[in-house]
Structure formats: C-alpha cells, structure tokens
C-alpha cells in the first residue's frame, strides 16, 4: 500500500515536465524541490530526534559556497603571508565536497550544541548560522561578500566513454533534483527504520530511559546531525549550480523558517511530511503572487504557520493517515485511536 503510493507519487512527479510547459512554474518546482531536500534533512533532526535546529540553513549555505568555490576557484591570503590558491575543478567534485564539508560542519556543530537542550539548543543553532552568514558577508576576498559569487557553472555528469553531460536546461535540472530528492528520501527511510532510527526515536520519547537502556546519546544525535547536514549540503550545492549566483542572503533566517514550516505543516517525524508540506509551501508564493503584494504574502505565510500549529499541530500527513485508518477500520478501532490521541495530547 505504502510502496504503491510512493511509486505513484514518484511517477506523477516524473511526468510533470511532460505536460507542464510554463518555464516559470518549472523553475518554481525546481527551487521547491531543492528546499524539499533541505526540509527532509531537517526532518531527520526535528522529527526523529526531537531537536529543533533553527540554524539548518547554515549547512545548506555552506554546501552552496563550497560547491561554488570549488568550481570557480579562489585565491585568498592567509595570516602569515601565505596564499591559498585553488584552480577550478568540475562542479560534480564540488557537489561531493559540499556533502563532505557540510557533514563535517554538522559533526562539529552537533558535538558542541548537543551539550544543551531545548531553548538553548535552538539559540545556539541560530547563532551558528548567523556567524556563518557574517563570515560570508565580511570575508570578501573569498566570498565576494555582498557582491555575490557569479557565473557558477552548471553541474555536469561524467558519462563513461562519451564525455560529460552538462545540465543546463530546466528540464535536466528538474530530473537531477528529483533523483537527488529520491535518493535522500530512500536514505532517510532506510535510516529511521534501522537500529539507529529506533535509538533516535527512543531518545526523543524519553532521553533518560533511552540512556538507561544503553543508547549512546551523543553518538546517536551527532550521527543524525552529520547525515542531516550532509543532505542539506547536497541541496545547497544543487541550488548554487542551478541558480548560478550565491550571496550571503542564502543564510537568511527566513530560509530556515521556510524549511521548518515545510516540516511542521507536513508532519514532523513522517517521511512523506516534508515532501507534502514542502510542495504546499514552496508553491504557495507562486499561487499568491498574482493576488497579493510580496509583503502581504509574508504576512499570510506567518499567519498560515500560526494557523497550522493551532489547527493541525501534528501536521497534514499524520492527521490524514489517522483519518484514513479510522474510516477503514470502522468503530471497533476507535478506542485505541482515541487512546493514542489522548496520549499525544498529554505529551503536548
């Protein structure tokens, strides 16, 4: 049932460029897809370990900058009169490096910030993202600061024996994003159903109990942070090579909020949640554009976030899944559902 639905959804998404000819809409779908990948990676932390990281855009941005700088090359002075010179490498190497370096950053940030919990964790993660943004803004020699890195080459796929296929068109980029999103989805799905995923959920439910049965908190959380950051870095790299211009605004807090909204509205802790929430909130600005001024759109954005938390605090996918189960199993199953509901309410 679930596999059939997944295949159906993938087939539907893969068919989109066949009937959608509008380049603006296709462009919105590509950027939305990139943010959905980011949202899926955030969901790994937020939905499966219960840690609300509001600095997630840092890893996305680091991925974007690493990938862009790898493929553009740079020449910066270091303290002590040394110069670090890097000749441009193919963008695909940048993509791989983006994943590795974002993952490494995830490791160090995780190691430091998992010492605190709750509100303090949230504030540390925000601070980290802002420090990275300020470095990107002020280290002009490396990042061009507010002048932005421009002319970032499109990503190219090496084809053995044939040469290289450079993905320039929207159509090619759409399928690239779809494939990366699918890989990320399957990776996360595999992960949360493993022993490691059960450890993460155990931690989220009751940390003290999880520790007492022998779960290594720091190791589990840090591993989740590394994988989450690496996937976000991959999304950032795709973004850099698709948009082809990167400035420090990529680190804006509102981008993290966008990902959080995608996860929360779709349903945190649900695999399909970030995809559903991401498609809704990624395409909502497109739908609102003809009827609303940009400022009014953001007001609506904030309003919708509040409304979702009030009306569907568990998110769209879990609520729908529960309704579906209830209607299928009739009245006999109502008791456990009601029990589960009260349990959820009590936990909240």
């Amino acid at each position, binding site marked *: 049932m679930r596999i059939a639905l997944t295949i159906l959804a993938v087939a539907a998404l893969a068919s989109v460029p066949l009937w959608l000819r509008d380049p603006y809409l296709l462009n919105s779908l590509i950027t939305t897809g990139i943010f959905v990948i980011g949202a899926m990676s955030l969901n790994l932390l937020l939905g499966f370990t219960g840690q609300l990281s509001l600095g997630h855009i840092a890893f996305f941005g680091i991925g974007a900058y690493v990938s862009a700088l790898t493929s553009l090359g740079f020449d910066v002075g270091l303290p002590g009169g040394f110069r670090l010179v890097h000749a441009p490498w193919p963008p695909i190497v940048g993509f791989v490096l983006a994943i590795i370096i974002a993952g490494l950053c995830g490791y160090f940030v995780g190691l430091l910030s998992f010492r605190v919990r709750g509100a303090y964790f949230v504030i540390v993660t925000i601070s980290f993202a802002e420090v990275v943004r300020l470095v990107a803004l002020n280290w002009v020699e490396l990042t061009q600061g507010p002048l932005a890195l421009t002319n970032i080459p499109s990503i190219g796929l090496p084809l053995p024996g044939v040469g290289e296929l450079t993905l320039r068109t929207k159509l090619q980029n759409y399928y690239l994003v779809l494939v990366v999103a699918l890989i990320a989805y399957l990776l996360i799905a595999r992960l949360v159903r493993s022993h490691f995923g059960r450890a993460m959920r155990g931690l989220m439910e009751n940390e003290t109990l999880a520790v007492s049965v022998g779960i290594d908190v720091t190791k589990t959380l840090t591993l989740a942070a590394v994988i989450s950051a690496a996937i976000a870095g991959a999304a950032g790299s795709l973004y850099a090579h698709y948009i082809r211009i990167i400035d420090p605004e990529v680190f804006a807090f509102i981008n993290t909020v966008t990902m959080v909204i995608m996860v929360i509205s779709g349903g945190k802790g649900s695999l399909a949640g970030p995809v559903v929430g991401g498609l809704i909130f990624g395409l909502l600005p497109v739908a609102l554009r003809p009827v609303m001024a940009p400022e009014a759109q953001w007001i609506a954005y904030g309003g919708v*976030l509040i409304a979702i938390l009030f009306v569907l605090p568990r998110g769209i996918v879990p609520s729908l899944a529960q309704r579906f189960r209830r209607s299928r199993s009739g009245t006999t199953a109502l008791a456990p559902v009601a029990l589960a509901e009260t349990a959820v309410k009590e936990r909240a």
Partner: protein
Amino acid sequence: MSEFLQHLVNMLVLGGTYALLGIGLTLIFGIMNVVNFTHGVLYTFGAYIMFIVVQQIGLNFFLALPVAVLAGWLLGAAIELTLLRPLRGFDIDTTMLVMIGAWIAMQSGTLWIWGGVAKSVATPFPEAPLVLGPVSVSWLRLFVLAAAALLILVTYLLINKTSLGRAMRATFQDHDTASLMGVNVDMIYTSTFAIGSSLAAAAGALLGPVYVIFPQMGDLAAVKAFAIVILGGLGNITGAVIGGFILALAEELGAGYVSSGYRDAMGFVIIIAVLIFKPTGLFARAERVG
C-alpha cells in the same frame, strides 16, 4: 588611550538600552518559559511609534516616549491573550514556532505599512556633542542612557517592592504553588509579557532616534537580547543588566579593534561561547527573578 575611553563611553550608552532589551526578554523567558521571538518586533514597533508621534502627529519628543512604552505594553498584552494563552500547556517548541510566525507576520506588516525606506526622528537636542577632555558624547545619547537607567530602576522596584512583583517572583519559582496561594497565574503571565514587551518598545523608542528606523531593525536587537539573557542567566534581572553592558563592551571593542563588520557577530560569539563553556549563564548562583 583616549580611543579606549571613547569606547567605554559608547559602551555605557549602548549598554543601558541593551539591558532594557535583556530584562524584558529574561522576564518572559524566566517566568513563562516562552522563547519570545516577537521581542525584536516590539523593539521595531517602539521605534515606529516614536516616528509616528514625533514626525507624523507632531507631538513633543519627550511625550512620545511614554506613548511608545504604553503602546508596547498594549501590543504585548494582545499577543499574550490571543496567541500564548490558548497554547498554555503546549511544549516550548510549539509556542516558539507560533512566536516565529507572529514575528514574520508583524515584521512584514511593518514593511507593508511604512515601506523599506529608513526613517529618522528629529530630536530636540543640540547637534554639538558634549566634550569632556578626550571623549565626546552627544546630548541625545546621554538622554538615552538616563532614560534607560530610569526604566531599569522602575522595573527593579516593580519586581521587588510591589505585590504584583511578589506574585511574579512566586510564579517564577513555582507556578503551581503560586496558584494554590491565590495568585492569578494567567494574569501574571499576561502582565509579564506586557511588561517585557513595553521594555523592548522603550529600547526601540530610545535607540530609534539615535540610528535610523527600518522594519528589520528588530532582528539584530532580538539576537542581542538573547545573548544578554544567556549571558546573565535565565530570569536573572541583575544578570541581564550586567550582560547588557558586557555585550556592549564586546561590541565596542570588536568594532574598534577587530573589524566593524564583525560588530554584530559579537553577540553570537558570546552566545556560543557561554552555552558551550558555562550553559547556566555567568551568574548562575542567583538564578531567580530579582
């Protein structure tokens, strides 16, 4: 040396308003366990009230300040009643996200109404600064420091000498027991949020005329407030005052001796350093209101 003295004077002026911001946030954080992301918007709101009252209505500068404080109080009470009261008992993440939603909506509202162009407020103070030997300070900044000091004193007295303050301290220590003793905890929450908000609005109303007023001015202010709260410890008013001055000093020295581009990074660096090395804040021993 004279450069260093000048930095110290600037630190005093900035520190006063930072302390106001920090006290407001630490009260809300400590008593209500709410991470108030609308704090920066309230700061912006206070500044815009100054702009409206002085520039658009044409009232006296000194009259505009109490108006801004009162407006911040009312807006804070409204936010608490509509958004936070229905969420009582929900987890801290949910209220935090609701506050983020309110922040986005309100900041965009400001942008929509007044546009993105920076505004300035005319002040009745002379242009020429007060020169004391090697340092100089503008009369406006001196007034800002005095007003901030007065507001800090009023807040201190309110919390330590009045029955409302006693009820707030009791709620901070244990809201169930306070409720059993006849404290109306809902009312205390609303008052706390309103007082904290009015202090943020006051800080904005004081610093707005010093700099310029624009819709996003509150974002950095909010971060600074978080840094101060973390520095001073949760719910610790004295800590927030000291934290405000430490942050101002770090910013002045960072801007003066490192690079002005990193002035605003100091707050984040402090947050990260404190939470990693001393997560309870620098003044953990006195971790309670008052």
